[in-house]
């Protein structure tokens, strides 16, 4: 694999997506900042009383009263628990549109693959760009949230735990990464933007459903939780409660999911005929 070729692909995609990179990062970051501003006006003790009247199942699903009535828990339930929704759909769309399917539909893939570049190098360049885009966008989001936390009386009075922000950055990056790599994987199979998007989004919602509602399945079927990435994505634990016990396991498993999708994509793409 020639690294300058990989860098050429990453650089080119960044030049193309630089505005959406900044805009998207700032938009999601400002959403988090807005939630912090709202939290600054909230009375958490009063919220605790109000929530105690809600159905227990609903509160449990929300992370429990204790989690929902302190700034880290509340913020997690409003922002980090839904980053897959705020960011995931766009990322899946981008992985489909900047990935192979779009190049097949625009008939630009022949132009690149007739040059002295390995298919694996080419796809690796695309995947590296998508991860760099994700890491950068998420860094902008976290930076704005960090500014919000640092200036927020609610967070200041509870204590500023930057390690929680670092931990949630890591698992969010890996979790959203699985959505991207799944889209790349489907892209190598279907080589069509619409089909890739449909398959990747369907898988995403299915995994969310399994990972969120597995407790309500019969005991014999609850083992299915291990196949969903949502089971390993637990921002409430890391950011909401500051519990890092499962962070290494979750990091390793999510990295494994990413690696499996990437390797499968590279293997499939090596064997594919490129349609005209």
């Amino acid at each position, binding site marked *: 694999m020639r690294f300058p070729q990989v860098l050429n692909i990453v650089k080119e995609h960044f030049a193309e997506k630089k505005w959406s990179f900044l805009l998207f990062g700032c938009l999601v970051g400002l959403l988090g900042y807005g939630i912090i501003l709202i939290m600054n006006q909230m009375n958490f003790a009063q919220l605790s009383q109000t929530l105690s009247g809600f159905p227990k199942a609903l509160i449990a699903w929300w992370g429990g009263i204790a989690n929902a009535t302190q700034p880290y828990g509340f913020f997690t339930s409003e922002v980090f628990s839904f980053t897959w929704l705020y960011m995931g759909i766009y990322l899946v769309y981008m992985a489909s549109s900047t990935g192979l399917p779009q190049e097949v539909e625009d008939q630009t893939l022949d*132009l690149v693959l007739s040059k002295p570049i390995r298919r694996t190098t080419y796809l690796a360049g695309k995947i590296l760009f998508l991860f760099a885009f994700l890491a950068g966008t998420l860094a902008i989001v976290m930076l704005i949230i960090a500014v919000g936390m640092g200036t927020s009386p609610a967070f200041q009075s509870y204590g500023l735990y930057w390690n929680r922000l670092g931990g949630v950055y890591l698992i969010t990056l890996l979790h959203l990464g699985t959505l991207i790599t799944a889209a790349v994987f489907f892209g190598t199979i279907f080589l069509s933007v619409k089909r890739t998007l449909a398959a990747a989004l369907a898988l995403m919602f299915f995994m969310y459903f399994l990972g969120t509602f597995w407790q309500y399945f019969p005991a014999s079927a609850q083992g299915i939780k291990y196949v969903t990435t949502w089971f390993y994505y637990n921002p409430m634990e890391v950011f909401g409660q500051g519990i890092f016990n499962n962070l290494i396991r979750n990091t390793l498993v999510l990295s494994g999911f990413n690696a499996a999708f990437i390797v499968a994509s590279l293997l499939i793409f090596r064997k594919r005929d490129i349609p005209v």
Partner: protein
Amino acid sequence: MAQSAILTKKLTKYYGKNRGIEGVDLDVQDGEVFGFLGPNGAGKTTTIRTLLGLIKISSGSASIFGLDVVKNYLRIRERVAYLPGELGIYKEKSARRILKYLFAFYAKPIRWAKVEEIAEVLKLDLDRKSGVLSKGNKQKIGVILALAPDADLLILDEPTSGLDPLMSLEFFKLLVEKRGASGCTVLLSSHQLEEVEKVADRVGIIRNGRIAEIAAVTDLKRLALKHVELAFSDDGQAERVVDLVPHDLVESISVENHNHVHVMVTRANLSTLLSHLQGVPFEDIDIASPDLEDIFLKYYDVHDEPTRSGRDKSGRKPEMEANST
């Protein structure tokens, strides 16, 4: 004996059950311009794309400069410049950006002065977004992609598609200059005989996925037919023309609706035919180059069995068609 630039043996590609190409044997010599001729869908692009490793070979083998196209594709592509038949362009990028991006994949840097020079000849603004360019201008980007690198082999799939006649001329001028300067080999795919014969040394004809014939361009002049259509205002005149024209002068002659005559004649016999038509009171005359498919239908029977020199298997010229339709 010159080395083979491209050598294929029984090259076959199937798309599932559908035939792409079957048993294609090609031997393009180093330094020659080889015209690859065939109607649309004949298998030209499939052959080219197997050579470049864009699609997998079903059976047979292919090599470029003695290197196996499957095992040594990277080394081959360092020496090859390719202009695809269906040229896709990054719509959001300028021509300059596209060219810089794609040329960066070569290990050997491409001289940018050369790019500017070709762009100037072709009158292409490198800084306009390619999405707003006309088909012809987009094709010019492809022409630069093919002609700017110092490649030993140019693979050009329908290179003048979308170019106006003047630009096509400029393209062939550039191609001849490049070949003169570098001695590179050229595989020029086209469905127009007249285009290929301008520059090619030899021509390979592909039809229905199989090579129908490989010959020197001079031998293929017989394929350079002209279609002459005469229109008459009075019924009956057409039949009189059929009687007037010596039948051994033309390849075929037929009457349509009693007032149109269609004649297929070789270029060599065209002027003699026109002299025979002097004084014939036709209302309109149209002389055109027939489609390659029409020429093939004329010279090769429908079962894909090639018959030589426009003669049938007994060696005679095909029978005259003088049917009123």
